[in-house]
């Protein structure tokens, strides 16, 4: 008995097979979709060309090299109004990265603390954290940013109040909180001690390398002999001890440049504008509320049996946390955590609400207004955010694949 062939012979191809035969239908659908998309893109592109021609504009990125002609009040790299639009964009990018990095760090700290405390058996603290999380999660972040900015501007003293007649004073004798910004001491190398600072930096780098090596060694020791070496304390010592000893051996090459009242404003120190601080705090507390929920969910996702099993094996609570609970909870926590970091980075574009000069305000704002290059400017801006997101999510996927449960 021969099996009935379930596919008709090839030579009898009929046109209707393009719709009815599953082998060809998927191809038909895809070609149809491709044609529709190609037509749509062509239509958009043609419209753009016609519109650009009608406006007398061309498509040219040459404006990036032209003189910007506007000032940026907060810049991590040297910049003046004589610099180019490209450099202004770079200043903006660095400012975006700065607030994103500061925000992610603080959000992680706040979120972890709030998430753990929400699970606390202390009723009062758990309730306070619940109120915090619900209050921040359910109100737009833009409102928080504006509110924090208003707090900083309204309730802090002006620099004048730090003078002889004013009633304001420096925090810890070195930090000035004013309605223009917060001034913190700036570490500056002593004259002719630049090499010593670099030596210090090198020592810190070497210490970090040593910590990594030591951790690997401790892990191998544990896996081969079962002996557990102290990791946390040794890492701490490795990080701080060489740097501190070297600092004193090199004759204390760094001094602190304190902010001082000169005229109507503070001179010296590092000035963090209120726009930066408001944005930083609002973004961190807002994202922190989401991270708190993620952390809480992650800890709850590890079943109680795991803790009990670890205790039954005779592990102490700290080891139970480090070796049993955290590795499993982190697997649940990390992916949404990274996407929260991404959200924070993208939300930093709301800097426009407080006048912080991030990349959207320089490249996507003033540069576009001055040069009239909306198309090119928005394209570059979108590309920057897209690349940033893709890099972060690619690294997340990589990390995810290294820690996920290996099955089948």
């Amino acid at each position: 008995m021969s099996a009935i062939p379930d596919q008709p012979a090839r030579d009898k191809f009929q046109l209707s097979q393009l719709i009815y035969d599953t082998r060809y239908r998927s191809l038909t659908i895809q070609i149809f979709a491709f044609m529709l998309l190609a037509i749509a893109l062509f239509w958009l592109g043609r419209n753009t060309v016609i519109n650009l021609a009608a406006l007398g504009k061309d498509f040219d990125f040459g404006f990036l090299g032209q003189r910007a002609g506007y000032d940026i009040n907060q810049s991590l790299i040297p910049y003046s109004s004589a610099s180019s639009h490209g450099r202004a964009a770079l200043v903006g990018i660095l400012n975006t990265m700065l607030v994103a990095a500061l925000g992610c760090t603080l959000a992680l700290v706040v979120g972890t603390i709030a998430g753990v405390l929400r699970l606390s058996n202390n009723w009062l603290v758990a309730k306070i954290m619940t109120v915090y999380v619900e209050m921040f999660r359910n109100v737009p972040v833009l409102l928080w940013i504006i509110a924090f900015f208003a707090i900083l501007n309204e309730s802090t003293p002006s620099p004048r109040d730090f003078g002889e007649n004013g009633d304001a004073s420096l925090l810890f004798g070195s930090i000035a909180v004013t309605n223009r910004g917060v001034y913190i001491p700036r570490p500056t190398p002593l004259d002719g001690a630049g090499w010593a600072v670099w030596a210090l930096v090198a020592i810190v780098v070497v210490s970090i390398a040593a910590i990594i090596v030591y951790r690997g060694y401790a892990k191998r020791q544990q896996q081969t002999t079962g002996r557990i070496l102290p990791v946390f304390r040794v890492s701490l010592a490795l990080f701080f001890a060489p740097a501190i000893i070297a600092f004193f051996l090199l004759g204390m090459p760094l001094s602190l440049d304190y902010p001082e009242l000169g005229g109507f404003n503070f001179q010296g120190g590092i000035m963090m504008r209120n726009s930066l601080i408001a944005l930083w705090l609002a973004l961190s507390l807002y994202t922190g509320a989401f991270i708190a929920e993620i952390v809480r969910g992650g800890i709850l996702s590890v079943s109680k049996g795991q803790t009990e099993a670890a205790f039954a094996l005779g592990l102490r609570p700290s080891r139970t946390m480090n070796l049993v609970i955290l590795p499993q909870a982190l697997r649940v926590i990390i992916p949404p955590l990274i996407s929260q970091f991404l959200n924070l980075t993208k939300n930093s574009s709301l800097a426009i609400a407080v006048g912080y000069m991030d990349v959207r305000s320089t490249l996507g704002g003033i540069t576009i207004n001055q040069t009239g290059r909306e198309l090119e400017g928005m394209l570059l801006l979108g590309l920057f955010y897209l690349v940033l997101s893709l890099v972060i999510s690619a690294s997340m996927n990589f990390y995810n694949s290294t820690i996920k449960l290996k099955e089948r």
Partner: protein
Amino acid sequence: MSDLHAQTVPYVRESMVPQGEPPATERGAVKWMRENLFSSWFNAILTIIGLAFVAWVLMHIVPWFWNSIWFAGSLTACREIRDATWGAGAPSACFSVITDRWQQLLLGFYPSELYWRPITALVLFGVAVAPVLFTRVPRQLLWFSAIYPVAMVWLLWGGTIWPYLLVLAGFALGVPAYRIGAKAVAPLLGVVAAIAVPILFWVFVLPPLSGALSSALPIGLEAVPSRAMGGFMLSFIIGVSGIALSLPLGILLALGRQSHLIFIHAVSVAFIELMRGVPLIVWLFTASLLLNYFLPPGTTFDLTLRVVIMVTFFASAYMAEVIRGGLAALPRGQYEAADSLGLDYWKAMRLIILPQALKISIPGIVNTFIGLFKDTTLVVFIGLLDPIGLSNAIRATTDWNGIYWELFIFIGALFFICCFAMSRYSMYLEQKLRTDHR
């Protein structure tokens, strides 16, 4: 053994002592406090810090609220009343700004004699959304939910009724088009016909026909321009339209991303990553600055509509990722079971896969909705007057210059109520749809 006991023990108690109360530390408030507030020295410290914090916050907020002034014409008037009643410099909220301007904060510059229209639209929204949210509401109301979007647009924007009726007629034409197409050739063609016929009808028949009908029989409401829309109403319109449109689009994108058709998969991935990778505010600027480049010269396009489309695209990309998670979480056996029953792709999705996948993704979907609703505040940057934009406008007047907190609290409370209600509803829905044994 018992007899041995009786002989060795000289005294056996015959009457029991009545049960006493538990010790004072083991009952009532004291027990609760010992367990929940002071179970260890660390917890005791936390409790004290927490109490101090709460006391500090209350000390600042309560007098401010208690002394609030609700009816005054301006901030200066507020201050005068405060100085007269509570003494100069006393903390005092001036909620007069809300009682003075609440209509503007809620409805923007909508003509005040037409306020009945947004209010009716809101009431009808409740009626339309009830059968979608709660299964106990009569199912026939779903028909009303289906026509509500068109009715809402007509109520709010006004104009003659004909274009709106003809839009509905276009949808109605889709049904016979599907039947005829499916019967004559194949279901696939039926679907194509059901999509193509209404679109052709709207593009070619609707404009002349509605023009003719409007001039012949001008039945309708007074037209209200888009720039009159503002305040919380605008956030609500954008939010609700975005929510209603982004769910189906998100489902399609998620299915596209899971698809075996390489081209469809690639396009879905590209769209999702592009939308998610760039902040919404950049997309909104694109919609307001660049859209004119991409459309034929001379096209005008309502800004509110552009914003709705952008917000929908943005949210649908997030939605697609959430639903993809749900699809991926389903065991492979479910897909294989659907195949082995001989269901085709759409039937398998509709009857087996999606009901389960969507159920898994409910928390994520509602979180996306909440995020979308909160993101509607970003339209302030492209010049639409949402509540935050209006609060800036109110602050710019001489009467209310310098007033912050009262406005922030009011706006924040509006959003909080809506978002909190959504998250509670998602919890209720999860509870209701839970089928596993616990």
